[in-house]
């Protein structure tokens, strides 16, 4: 493989764009939204994620290009997870990456790595998420929306975002507006939230852990939306989408068996003559 084709292939890796976008969101949050910037925690997130990835990759003698995924996971942790000590973030980083190598079914990892790390960290009692941290400003939502368009065109997983958001919006509208009689602004306020948009556009769209076929993905995203709706509306869990994704991830192998399709690859194989 010559150098030109390597560079060209690399440039086609959507993970660069994803890194850039998540990095922008983090910078935006720190600059404009007064997130409590603990640079030590951020540094630990990166170091632990990347080190874990490198260790696993060396051990399994896989290509090092997967470090990009570790960087994305680390950014995800920085964006979503808040901790009361750096050790929790270190463990979250290790858990996030290790889940990809340890919890596999037929060669595909089961859990969305960042989601797995976050759930584990929250269960430890020393971490939390701040769903309110994005506020409800138009600029913020515009930024995330813009990023979403960019990334979804790349990884072609917009079906997941659209299904999830539509189903959840439908269910919440039915309950909050049609049944309980709240005004529409209540529903809009719930969806005008960076956390839910980030989840819909950047977390469940992970092509590695979502079902391979489109039909499977639509079913999968609907189930996440449904469970998230129940957990949020009847059990008052504000982390509902994250928990729903975690639980529904168990069904991914089954869905892949029923709806067969080719597995996603970050860098499409090129055939050199």
């Amino acid at each position, binding site marked *: 493989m010559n150098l030109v084709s390597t560079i060209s292939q690399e440039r086609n890796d959507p993970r660069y764009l994803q890194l850039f976008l998540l990095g922008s969101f983090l910078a935006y949050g720190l600059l*404009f939204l007064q997130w409590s910037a603990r640079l030590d925690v951020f540094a630990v997130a990166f170091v632990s994620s990347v080190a874990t990835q490198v260790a696993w990759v060396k051990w399994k003698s896989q290509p090092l290009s997967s470090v990009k995924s570790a960087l994305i996971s680390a950014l995800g942790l920085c964006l979503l997870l808040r901790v*009361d000590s750096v050790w929790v973030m270190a463990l979250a980083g290790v858990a996030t990456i290790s889940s990809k190598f340890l919890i596999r079914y037929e060669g595909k990892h089961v859990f969305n790595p960042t989601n797995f790390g976050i759930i584990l960290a929250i269960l430890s009692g020393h971490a939390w998420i701040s769903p*309110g941290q994005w506020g*409800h400003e138009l600029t913020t939502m515009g930024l995330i929306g813009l990023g979403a368009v960019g990334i979804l065109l790349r990884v072609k997983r917009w079906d997941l975002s659209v299904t999830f958001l539509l189903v959840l919006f439908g269910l919440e509208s039915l309950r909050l507006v049609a049944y309980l009689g709240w005004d529409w602004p*209540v529903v809009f306020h719930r969806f005008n939230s960076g956390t839910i948009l980030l989840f819909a556009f950047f977390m469940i769209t992970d092509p590695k852990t979502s079902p391979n076929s489109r039909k499977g993905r639509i079913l999968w995203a609907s189930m996440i939306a449904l469970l998230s709706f129940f957990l949020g509306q009847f059990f008052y869990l504000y982390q509902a989408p994250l928990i729903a994704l975690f639980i529904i991830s168990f069904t991914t192998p089954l869905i892949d068996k029923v709806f067969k399709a080719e597995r996603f690859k970050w860098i*499409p194989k090129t055939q050199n003559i």
Partner: protein
Amino acid sequence: MKRRITAIFMAMLIISTDVSAFCGFYVAKASTDLFNEKSEVILVRDGDHTVITMSNDFKGDVKDFAMVVPVPVVLREDQIKVVEREIFDRLDAYSAPRLVEYHDANPCEPIVQYDMEMAKRSNAPMSMMIREESAEEDAADYGVTIEAQYTIGEYDILLLSAEESDGLETWLTRNGYQIPAKAAEVLEPYILNDTKFFVVKVNLDKQQQKGFDYLRPIQISFESDRFMLPIRLGMANANGPQDLIVYAFTRKGRVEPVNYRTVKMPTANKVPLFVNRYFGEFYQDLFHRAYHKEGRSAVFLEYAWNVSPMQGVKCDPCVSPPPVFGDFATAGVNWVTGMNYESQVFFTRLHVRYTKDRFPQDLQFQVTPNSEHFQARYIITHPAKGDLSCEAGERYVRDLENRRNLEVKELSALAGWTNPNYADYVTEFSKRFKPDKYAPQRNSFLPAAILQGTDDGMSDWAKWIFPLVVLVGVLVLRPKRKREIY
């Protein structure tokens, strides 16, 4: 006797004519002097166990006072208490935004002076309550069930459940509560969500026996997986923004709203000496600007501290004594048993100014393990006293001028205060004791003039640059249409 649901006003420092209400709505005559000055809540959360203490500065006839608060369950008699008003005053005084005073040492006679003092705001005075008899009809069958009925302290308390909002509205009206037109539609979601209603009015006989000339706070406790404050009901007839101060106690750490953004108040800012005389006004305007700057949709953190009995430093510096065992017991912090490490208590003070349009959802909270301390604290520094004619003294005076220049800029950025006389403060060190020359020219055009004189961080346009940069990034990193190499 008709009662009318009237909102109350509850700003902590804010003296204005804004109508406001609390997590329930108040039922009273709609005369303008009925507005409450404050709405304060003590929230205690331990697992699912929740204790809510509600205080108000009701300003009208007690016979007109009534309050409706949505509660998740029918409360038993032992779950309702009347507590003394002092607990709020103590918590408020302890956690209020503070002005700290420092003294410069005279560089010509280097003796270290160390003295701190706090400027504290005063609370609005309570009004007198006039007693008058009122009759109440029996419950009629409007789909309204009286689940329980108690007389506790000076209050008559009803726990209602309803099948539909019109029935409840009619029932309330029939029983002498005149509720605002919009109330029924606000009641509806709570009824459908199987919420009970905690309806309180003053028992005039008891009130007279007790001899209080004000209404004491009511405390309710219950088990619920929901950790929230129903603010929407109070907005039924409110026009302007309403202020709510939440004093929260948990075992673990800070209380944080999950459906609104939390913003820390500016803190540790150095402000001119004369702010001392206008600290109340300063904090009002500071809060007002911060409120607008954050898009009128944020919840503000004013204080966060570990107040466990075993914790050493409970404030830095303390405005007033930190909560003691008696305060914990009154507030409902039942896990504090004494000087031991099991008695961990974390205190959070939140300040919310809410309006109908920016706060469409009730406030929902979570208890986080975040035990980082925070206090809203502003600093004034007294210049050195005595002869400053030595060389170091001249340098000191020059530095002082620079510092005061920054202080004046800070004042403009924080509170929006400008006054040409401030130039004298900066330059004329010797005239610093002139009384009231620096009286603020408070800007009444806020928030229209909010950007004036602001140089605190990024302005609004910078926010829009960000999406543009991202757009460029997306374009640069976009996929190529065709892959050339195959």
